[in-house]
């Protein structure tokens, strides 16, 4: 997406909303080197894309279980995420299509004291579906739900940096253990919708009375969730549909069929094998977004032989990522470079030298490590990410040329995350990614991170991490983050195969603006962002 293009898009959006005239747009377009014909067609197309009210959006999601519950602390995946959060609820902030954090329930937010103190000013006139206005107390209660001894929330560790949070008029004030310039990102998480406070001080997560663009009509766990328009939603330009229905369709074939037979308008996680055939269907658009999610193999750097950085490098050079992408993922994704930060994330860099398949380098590093050949076990299961096993098998082939013998062990899918991940020395792992460098690094690569699955502790890296948090000067931060990514790339224990794409398909008659990359289904907020063009 280059600059002019962005400008034009912006202008277009203005134009179709009538804020600028068609002529003005055309001139702008010509000025930026677009032919008149092109400009016109762009305009007409854009006009067709103009949001329209109405219709019932039906979405088929490949997740959802009968055990799903309204408790946002336990939202496990896209189904609960998109339906019960993105459609039903709002958090304090949200991530926009370009990956920037913007206010949602909070109108604005500002840091002080080296980003240790954060004040979020709540938006006026935001009401719950029952009409009650959202107060600071509600926000506090909602976040408290994830903290404390008995919290079962998956977001618990995200918020453990909070020392105090208190309501102050129409603002909520956070005191953090250390500075964190990205804190607003943290509270955009889908586990943290704002919910009404009960009299007993706890929060009412059961009723589904939230603030979102749609009200909950019916939630049948593992089957279906249906919503209807919230007439007094506070975002004027969001929430176009009259009703939205989510179906949990775990079988990808069934999902595809439902889309083709027109019973749903949108499906996530297309079957890559048959994508070409799906594309050939005239009424269906396939959209592919490179997200933050990445498929990695992580080694425990505290254990032999992985405690030797040269061994690690040899391993990193021993895999042909392009081949894996081509064969296992049929080209859907972007090859990784042992850097967990997706290119689309702010401050992302591409550390050099790129770790691409290079047997000679691999051997060279082995020699440096005082070895002429290397053998190790690699524990994998498709539970980590589908394709983990095949990728490992391919890698085994590649590595042979590097005198590296990988002994691929297939682990059971069930309980993979409990019995293998963080337990076996070298395992397959998956990160759905985080919208900021800090968040990602804090979650998985900081020395004290709860999920430091490489057991990697790098002093320099950690001090940079802390420093960068409180650093408010963008340029300086950029530099720090660049260095951190470089260190991790050179020294870390992760082998990042690729950033996976969200491959999703939808009926041609759905309209939308730029699609967000932070989560599937347009950042999980498809219901309020998309519309029917006809």
């Amino acid at each position: 997406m280059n600059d002019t293009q962005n400008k034009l898009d912006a202008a277009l959006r203005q134009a179709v909303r009538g804020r600028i005239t068609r002529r003005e747009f055309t001139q702008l377009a010509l000025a930026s080197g677009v032919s008149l014909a092109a400009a016109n067609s762009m305009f007409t197309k854009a006009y067709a894309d103009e949001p329209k009210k109405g219709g019932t959006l039906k979405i088929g999601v490949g997740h959802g279980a009968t055990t799903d519950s309204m408790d946002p602390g336990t939202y496990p995946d896209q189904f609960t995420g998109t339906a019960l959060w993105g459609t039903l609820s709002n958090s304090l902030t949200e991530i926009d299509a370009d990956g920037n954090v913007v206010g949602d329930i909070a109108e604005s937010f500002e840091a002080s004291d080296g980003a240790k103190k954060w004040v979020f000013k709540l938006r006026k006139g935001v009401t719950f579906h029952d009409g009650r206005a959202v107060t600071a107390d509600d926000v506090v209660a909602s976040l408290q739900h994830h903290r404390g001894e008995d919290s079962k929330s998956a977001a618990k560790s995200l918020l453990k940096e909070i020392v105090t949070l208190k309501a102050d008029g129409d603002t909520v004030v956070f005191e953090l253990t250390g500075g964190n310039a990205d804190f607003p990102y943290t509270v955009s998480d889908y586990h943290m919708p704002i919910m009404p406070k009960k009299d007993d001080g706890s929060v009412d997560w059961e009723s589904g009375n939230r603030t979102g663009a749609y009200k909950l009509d019916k939630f049948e766990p593992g089957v279906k969730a249906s919503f209807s328009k919230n007439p007094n939603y506070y975002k004027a330009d969001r929430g176009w549909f009259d009703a939205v229905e989510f179906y949990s369709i775990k079988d990808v074939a069934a999902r595809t069929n439902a889309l083709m037979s027109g019973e749903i308008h949108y499906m996530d996680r297309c079957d890559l094998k048959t994508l070409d055939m799906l594309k050939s269907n005239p009424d269906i658009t396939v959209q592919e977004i490179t997200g933050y999610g990445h498929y990695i193999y992580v080694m425990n750097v505290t254990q032999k032989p992985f405690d030797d950085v040269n061994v690690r490098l040899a391993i990193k050079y021993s895999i042909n990522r392009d081949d894996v992408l081509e064969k296992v993922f049929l080209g859907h994704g972007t090859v990784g470079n042992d850097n967990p930060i997706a290119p689309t994330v702010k401050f992302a860099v591409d550390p050099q030298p790129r770790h691409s398949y290079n047997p000679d380098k691999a051997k060279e590093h082995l020699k440096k490590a005082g070895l002429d050949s290397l053998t190790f076990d690699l524990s994998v299961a498709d539970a980590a990410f589908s394709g983990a096993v095949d990728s490992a098998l391919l890698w085994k082939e590649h590595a042979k040329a590097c005198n590296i013998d990988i002994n691929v062990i297939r682990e059971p899918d069930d309980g993979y995350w409990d019995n293998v991940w963080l337990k076996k020395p070298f395992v397959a792992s998956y990160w759905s990614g985080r919208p900021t460098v800090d968040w990602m690094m804090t979650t998985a690569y900081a020395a004290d991170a709860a999920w430091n699955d490489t057991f990697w502790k790098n002093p320099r890296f950690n001090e940079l991490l802390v420093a960068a948090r409180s650093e408010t000067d963008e340029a300086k931060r950029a530099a720090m983050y660049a260095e951190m990514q470089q260190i991790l790339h050179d020294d870390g224990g992760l082998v990042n195969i690729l950033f996976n794409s969200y491959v999703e398909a939808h009926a041609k008659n759905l309209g939308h603006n730029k699609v967000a990359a932070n989560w599937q289904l347009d950042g999980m907020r498809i219901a309020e962002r998309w519309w029917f063009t006809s």
Partner: protein
Amino acid sequence: MTAQSPQLRQVRARRSLWESTRRTLSSAPFSAWFGMIVILLYVIAAVFAPWIAPYGEAEIVGKAYQPPGPEFWFGTDQIGRDLFSRLIYGARNTIGIAFLTTLLSFAVGGTLGVLTALKRGWLDQGISRVVDAFLAIPVLIFALMLLAVFGKSIVNLILILALLDSTRVFRLARATALDVVVMDYVEAAKLRGEGMGWIIFKEVLPNILPPLITEFGLRFCFVFLTIASLSFLGVGIQPPTADWGSMVAESKTLITFPVRTFPWIPAPFYPALAIAILTVAINFVVDWFLHKTSGLRDEV
């Protein structure tokens, strides 16, 4: 029938084993012949897979979904493996696994069935209750759980399916054995003071073989259907091992794409066809076998 002349008996008496088999075969109907030939071909394919198959089992030899041609007879699958080769190896794995499973289930279920039929009493009661319980639990889901518990290795798959199948075999073996254990020759053996082993394997088993063999044929087919369903639910035989059931499940999404996007038969149809044909073949043979062993003669 009282009407059977001594001559007739003489002829039968003088007939050698080979001749009688030849006669039996010559009297076999077309369907039975068809069945036997098909089975034979499958077995050959299974045994000599590595020599017959042009490419390796998991070898990626081309682009995905190449149409059939001189190079790839049945085309290639989703990641460019030769379908024909996979089918051949599939025969080996599928039939091999199904055979082992069925054999095991019959060894266990059959023996127990006859034993309980002979012994009756508390042993019978106990085993029957457990078997009832196992029968009352949905096979698929139970298999799912057990596979999750013990891990999805092929060995476990065989053991678990065999265990679950053996309950049904037990039922049949016991029922049929009950008719045999009342025979005088069993009593004679008891009077002689024979041990259980002899009575089960020498006196009873040979006489309940026909129904058991029939059941064997059918169970055998059900095994790979079960495996197919398990693969469909994500725990069957794991890739890249070629097994018809899993092959169908793997490329299931292709089934529902309009055939026009394929100028050839969609990939999943080959293994499905392979399964179907074999099952039909086995059933033809079994039907004929049943017909021969049952007293019934068709009007001539």
